[in-house]
């Protein structure tokens, strides 16, 4: 049975393992620092489809199928599928994954979806509700731009604080296995906002939520940044990352170079002109599946706090002058099933 640690953290007893994972990206992602680590790269951003929305769905399907084949499993082996994306009515997930025929639950957590899906998938396995479960998510630059910002060919300029939506998808299969990486504990975040209204500065909007969840987890588990090899946030970008470090320091935790952000790993922000860094559900998902998990499996990284962050606004809420609510869910991944992470 899972146990509660402190007020907010849920500690797994069976510690589900990540059996298979896959990352899919497009050309810009392939040109980035971790381009060679992707399982599948399509230089055609349409993925052979006729619209950007269908292309995003296709990315999810390809990622899910690749994760299944890497784990030598078929869709019938998966008891529950959690997936989401940034589009209205999460259509990329519904259209992309419908052919798999796996019992499905759609999620919307904006860019926090990978953490959200992974937490739910792990809980289902831990609780015995599913033998194996899967979490999938994606984002597509073109479908996100046309829904949230301007048409692709519009010659508007971006402020330096703006981020670049990744065209990427990631899929993770969770089940019981004696091989790492394991989900050790999770900390579900609360919605937090500090009156940031700038749609072009989402890192700033999400940083307080990230600091809130991370602080709660440290307090609950009586650990600190030094107990972990890396604290990997989803897409805070450069500005959000700076603010997270400042907020944590205010609360007495020095991140001391332990913090890394998927948005700054996926793209070279200067050379690839991605503003303050990458963003989107696919950003955290792809960096998790292409970069982090293979390194954990190889034993190069052992204790990780993976925390995808989301900005939960819509174009309507922003136009109506509302501030941007943020959220961050934390997953403690480890190469060990038990024992306290030691201070390094």
């Amino acid at each position, binding site marked *: 049975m899972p146990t509660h640690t402190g007020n907010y953290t849920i500690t797994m007893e069976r510690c589900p393992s990540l059996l298979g994972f896959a990352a899919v990206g497009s050309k810009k992602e392939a040109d980035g620092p971790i381009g060679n680590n992707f399982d599948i790269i399509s230089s055609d951003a349409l993925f052979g489809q006729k619209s950007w929305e269908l292309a995003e769905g296709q990315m999810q399907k390809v990622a899910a199928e690749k994760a299944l084949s890497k784990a030598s499993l078929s869709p019938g082996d998966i008891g529950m599928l959690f997936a989401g994306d940034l589009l209205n009515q999460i259509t990329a997930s519904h259209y992309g994954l419908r052919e798999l025929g796996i019992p499905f639950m759609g999620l919307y957590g904006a860019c926090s979806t990978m953490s959200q899906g992974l937490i739910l998938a792990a809980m289902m396995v831990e609780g015995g509700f599913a033998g194996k479960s899967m979490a999938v998510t994606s984002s597509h630059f073109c479908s996100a731009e046309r829904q949230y910002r301007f048409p*692709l060919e519009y010659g508007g300029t971006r402020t*330096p604080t703006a981020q670049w939506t990744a065209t990427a998808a990631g899929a993770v299969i969770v089940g019981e296995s004696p091989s790492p990486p394991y989900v050790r504990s999770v900390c579900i975040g609360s919605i937090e906002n500090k009156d940031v209204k700038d749609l072009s500065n989402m890192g700033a909007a999400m940083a307080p939520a990230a600091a809130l969840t991370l602080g709660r987890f440290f307090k609950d588990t009586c650990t600190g940044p030094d107990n972990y090899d890396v604290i990997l946030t989803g897409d805070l970008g450069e500005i959000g990352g700076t603010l997270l470090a400042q907020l944590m320091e205010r609360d007495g935790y020095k991140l001391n170079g332990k913090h890394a952000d998927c948005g700054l790993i996926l793209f070279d922000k200067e050379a690839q002109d991605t503003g303050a860094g990458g963003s989107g559900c696919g950003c955290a998902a792809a960096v998790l599946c292409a970069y982090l998990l293979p390194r954990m499996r190889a034993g190069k990284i052992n204790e990780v706090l993976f925390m995808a962050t989301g900005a939960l606004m819509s174009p309507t809420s922003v136009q109506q002058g509302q501030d941007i609510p943020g959220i961050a869910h934390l997953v403690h991944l480890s190469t060990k099933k038990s024992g306290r992470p030691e201070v390094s």
Partner: protein
Amino acid sequence: MENLTNQAYTEMVKKASPPSKSAKNIPMAFLFGGLICALGHFFIQMFKQAGLSDEIAFPAGSIALIFLAVLLTGLGVYDKLARHGGGGTLVPITGFANAIAAPALEFKSEGYVLGLGAKMFSVAGPVIVYGVASGIIYGVIIYLMGAY
């Protein structure tokens, strides 16, 4: 986190967020905007040389710029120029043409009526609405002042 006020956080955000690179952006906007306007004058002179009257040559120059902007938008070049040109490519008539052509291209996938037709003015629409509205207001003022 508990004792952090919104105002204090807003200050932190301001400090952490880099400002726009005005030292580079403003001269680039001047250069691109100036070049577009010079190109417009080149067209006007060309039309005059071809025998068009002033009254026709000026609008014909604008039409030539609009054509060029829409063509470059269709070829996927205009937004790349705009990344360097900034305000310089946004303000002249070419920016307006781009703002109409870009959504027309983008939303074609939702059909010609509810996609292309309806969304074509999603960026430029407000400019047209408030341009016409202010035109009417100024027209009335000028009429009342007896200028005509």
